[in-house]
């Protein structure tokens, strides 16, 4: 019989099927689904494109399609805006690519011990980076993490309002809005149009006794350090609200951790901790708090804890399992599911590989390059970095409004020169029409910066 045999379907072989059917005691596989009513059946075979049964053909087809992309490795990348072109050490890929981690799922502590320990270590390292005591198994992304952080705050404070500054990442904000709606209401706080930081006056005005939490993004979307964060935390606390800090964890080798300026909950995205950008797919969220039941009880996420075993090994398991939607479907804290565990393991490897010194040096490398970039671009006519006076960290607002060119135009011409220009702020902030958010990473070289400077010189000439 010439029936096709599929490499991924061992029992597609006809004689095996016959043997199994005989054992079951039926004549055909069709008999096993005979209870599905006729009127629910698809009336014809599916029509899909001819498959690539041979792996070589598939690889050629998909390879050719993806080959149409031009990547940030081929181009010179100055895009940031919440996703950073970080160098990913080979050890990170090595570990994340180990099939034992890659192909596992919801293994139990007794047979998937390694996953539990790797994740416990991730939680531990994140907690140190954030100067907190508890960190969760990763959630989907920073957007969901901040959504959960604000919902946790709402549950803790038993209030329904969250203050969100207008200088947060608009992509994160969009996710946050969907996630909070309809239970938690967002009130926006303006940013100070001179500094680019949160406007304390606006905050004061909006901060009522109904507010559960004040959100601070640090550095904020304009790349600027929110240096009044402690003051904001004090204001929030004075009104019985919590302070939630959305931080870029890769800055924390150099910048103060959120606990040190009064944040009650820290959250954010770990993409910049050794995850490939993956066209935006390299994201995962974290939430960290102190080790107090009022916080811990409110996590929806899995939290792996350490425990002794009968043989004095390190054992692991789920802390407060009953919180979760796995345990308690209609009484759970939000929900949990398949989120981004593998990225957590990867970020753990990254943090362990970098160590305290590496994280510090990473921060230094980034601020140094941003300094270099601003110097190199200082002579470009029609470009100014003075739009905001706040201090930027790894990205800065470049104001082209004097040049008479739109950011879209400039970016198009940069692309012609092999350069991915910065993010066009005018799209989300009409008041910043003509402004571009330019990011550097430790991968940005002096040559890259020179290329940008001379391209801009040409374009704006």
């Amino acid at each position, binding site marked *: 019989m010439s029936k096709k045999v599929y490499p991924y379907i061992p029992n597609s072989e006809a004689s095996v099927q016959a043997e199994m059917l005989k054992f079951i005691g039926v004549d055909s596989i069709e008999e096993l689904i005979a209870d599905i009513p006729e009127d629910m059946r*698809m009336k014809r075979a599916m029509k899909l494109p001819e*498959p690539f049964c041979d792996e070589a053909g598939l690889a050629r087809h998909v390879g050719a399609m993806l080959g149409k992309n031009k990547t940030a490795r081929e181009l010179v990348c100055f895009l940031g805006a919440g996703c950073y072109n970080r160098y990913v050490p080979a050890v990170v890929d090595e570990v994340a690519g180990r099939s034992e981690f890659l192909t596992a799922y919801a293994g139990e502590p007794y047979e998937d011990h390694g*996953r539990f320990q790797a994740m416990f270590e991730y939680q531990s390292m994140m907690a140190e980076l954030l100067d907190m005591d508890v960190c969760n198994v990763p959630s989907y*992304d920073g957007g969901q993490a901040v959504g959960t952080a604000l919902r946790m705050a709402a549950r803790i404070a038993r209030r329904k309002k969250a203050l969100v500054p207008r200088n947060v990442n608009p992509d994160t904000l969009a996710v946050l809005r969907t996630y909070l709606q309809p239970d938690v209401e967002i009130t926006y706080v303006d940013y100070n149009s001179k500094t680019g930081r949160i406007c304390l006056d606006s905050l004061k005005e909006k901060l009522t006794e109904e507010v559960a939490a004040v959100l601070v993004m640090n550095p904020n979307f304009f790349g600027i350090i929110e240096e009044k964060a402690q003051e904001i935390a004090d204001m929030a606390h004075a009104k019985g609200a919590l302070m939630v800090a959305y931080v870029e964890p890769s800055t924390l080798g150099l910048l103060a951790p959120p606990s040190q*300026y009064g944040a009650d909950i820290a959250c954010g995205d770990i993409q910049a901790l050794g995850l490939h950008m993956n066209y935006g797919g390299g994201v*995962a969220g974290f939430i960290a708090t102190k080790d107090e039941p009022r916080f811990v009880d409110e996590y929806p996420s899995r939290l792996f804890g350490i425990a002794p075993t009968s043989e004095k090994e390190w054992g*692991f398991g789920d802390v407060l399992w009953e919180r979760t939607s796995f345990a308690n479907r209609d009484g759970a804290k939000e929900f949990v599911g398949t989120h981004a565990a593998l990225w957590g393991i990867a970020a753990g490897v990254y943090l362990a590989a970098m160590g305290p010194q590496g994280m510090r040096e990473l921060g230094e490398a980034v*601020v140094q390059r941003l300094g270099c970039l601003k110097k190199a671009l200082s002579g470009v006519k029609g470009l100014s970095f003075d739009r905001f006076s706040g201090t930027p960290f790894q990205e800065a607002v470049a104001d082209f409004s004097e040049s008479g060119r739109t950011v879209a135009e400039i970016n198009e011409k940069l*692309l012609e020169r092999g350069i991915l220009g910065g993010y066009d702020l005018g799209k989300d902030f009409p008041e910043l029409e003509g402004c571009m958010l330019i990011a550097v990473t430790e991968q940005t070289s002096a040559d890259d910066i020179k290329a940008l400077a001379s391209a801009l010189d040409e374009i704006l000439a």
Partner: protein
Amino acid sequence: WNEPIIYEISEPGARAVLVPGPCCECTSAEEAVASLPSAMLRKESPKLPEVAQLQLVRHYNHLSQENIGVDGNIDIGQGTCTMKYNPKVNERLAGDAKLSEMHPLQPEGTAQGILELFYRTGELFKEISGLDVFSMQPGGGSHGVLALASIVRAYWRDMGEENKRDEIITTLFSHPADCAVPIVKGYKVTIIQPDAEGYPDIEAFKAAVSDHTAAIFFTNPEDTGIFNVRIKEFTRIAHERGILCCYDQANANGLLGVTRTVEADFDMSFFNLHKTFGAPHGCGGPATGMVAAKKELRPYMPVPLVEHSPEKGYYLDFDLPKSCGKIKSFWGIAPVVVKAYSWIMSLGAEGLREVSRVAVLNNNYCMKKILAIRGASISFPNHRPRVEQARYSWQKLKEDTGFGTADVQRCVADFGTHYWSSHEPWVIPEPFTIEPSESYSKQDLDDYTAVLAEIARMCYEEPEAVRRAPVNSTVHHIDHDYFDDPAKYAITWRAYNKKYKGYFEPR
């Protein structure tokens, strides 16, 4: 072995990777750091471990070896999760720098390859689901439910009934997320209990629907592996009241090409690209719970959608003013989509049909084997055959020997394989759910069921051995008292060191 915690192998000063220094001499790092507000500088370095590269690799290598995964065992013990083979070629395609090094905000012109792949994946699902519009944003099955619930809300908002339509109906044997997630979107949830045959009770359903019902969220086949043959009756009743019908297709593996969302008259559904469609689980994500809907619901879909026009090529369409908003940052987990696309394109229509045929065959083969094991039974025994999985019970074993599903689980670890009880609550007593997807050979199924039979035998004949288990696994009996008491639990090494010294000696 007992691999140390990474902090235990930390050596002051050790480095695993070094970071580039200044890019040039125009600005020094010191100068740049000095420009930062000093109050916002970190005073003390974060207490991360310090490990050289080999020692780091060895540590994680050991941890990985203390994990199993599909590549390491006959992974059929995690019912409802469709543990199937994840082709290596797809990993390589999805891991290529041509995708991994793409920034999400690159101009669309530089992203035609991946956008085309998203678009083509949607085209494939037009046929696989019978629906019209697709979003690959959601990051997992539960996230797919969140997207559906968000679309439901956006729809009723547009209809002006957002506040009135505040109830959602699901069933007991739908995935827990179908209940938990709509609650997060502000809905009251009614759970329809099963009738004596294991179907959702249609009378209870009729009683539950009203003009306050916003939507129904049904998994089918349910987690019992039973296909709800009256499903169109449910959707008919719902549609009569204008209610939206959301189909949880996380359990679709047995029905590809047989019956689809559209045949069951649902308006929307989601598919797990990581389960049914061959992308790996990664210890629990990253993943994709792709949302599919009828074209009438396009205005409410998450933004952006991937579209194509002759002038623009492939592009991201943000122009959906009534959209439910964004579900996930950027555009979703692109590598998972690449893997699912590649998987489908390696099988084609006939291959997908064969996937389902064999998933059903394997399940019914296993079922017969398991039901021959002393102490094992099946939920709703009148219902046989099942589709792609079945929920079983060790109730009899428990009655006879005192050992239940958790004891079996401890024992399974000694056989180098995996076993999971079932989603809670355990309405089926001492449950376990076996889903032998198409990836496993007859020999695999024989071997796995033989392990279950051997454990059942041990429960009857060697209770001491059962009590001792696991003895050969990576770790021994774990003291569960340390997970629920705030004074005892430690979620990080830092918390451990605050609560304990040495080996769990309280401070």
